[in-house]
């Protein structure tokens, strides 16, 4: 998995690309979120536009990051879900857990709402 970090005011955007799967991308995702929290960034937006594959480990890591961030008083939200990731969140009903946006501007604004 490749990643890039962008900052918008107090929101950190993590642009993810490639595979978030067992043994590789899942661990990287956890590290990216942990590094953000250690740096005091508790508002995190995952941009999943470039993600081609995710498996149950990647989904599980997203859930783990979501709860970790929430426990620190922050929020982790999702934007630009590819259709297949959307399907995976739908069938496990995780779509009801995450705040999901189609538009980055709206997602960023939601953190200050």
């Amino acid at each position: 998995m490749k990643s890039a970090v962008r900052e918008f005011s107090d929101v950190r955007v993590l642009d993810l690309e490639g595979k978030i799967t067992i043994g590789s991308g899942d661990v990287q995702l956890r590290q990216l979120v942990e590094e953000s929290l250690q740096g005091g960034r508790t508002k995190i937006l995952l941009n999943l536009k470039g993600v081609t594959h995710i498996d149950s480990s990647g989904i599980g890591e997203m859930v783990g990051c979501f709860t970790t961030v929430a426990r620190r008083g922050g929020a982790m939200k999702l934007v630009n879900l590819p259709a297949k990731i959307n399907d995976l969140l739908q069938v496990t009903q995780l779509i009801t857990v995450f705040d999901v946006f189609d538009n980055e501007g709206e997602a960023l604004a939601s953190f200050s709402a």
Partner: protein
Amino acid sequence: MVRQAQMQLLSSFENIEIADGMLQELCSSSAVEEETAYWVGMALREALANAIKHGNKLNPEKRVHVLVRIAPGEELSIEVEDEGEGFAPSDVVDPTSPENLLRKSGRGIFYIRHFMDAVRFSPGERGGTRVALVKRLNKAGQGGLDEERS
């Protein structure tokens, strides 16, 4: 014409890519529709991850045995067998129950069952677990389940 491929993989997550690559090539050469091949690949990935992690417990001396068979217009079947100590799928909780929604693990077998038409666990010949997966195919190479749902 029935196409078939067989692999023995060392217990490393990197090898999941190799197996899925083999599956995708076989699907492509058998005119299996891309969308169907993607979700069957997802099921294979989950089955392999279970075999490597829970079956063989990442033991580098243990292997995972994979057999893929495609009968175009009929069905795509996969067998994944580990060399572990056996596994009881009844132990798996429902990941969509409200009390389980925020669990980090426990979705792999749920996804396998969702994307395949038949899933059967049985004791393997090598002492571990064998999981047999079947996806029905129609003449256009599409998964039969999707057609039935529409």
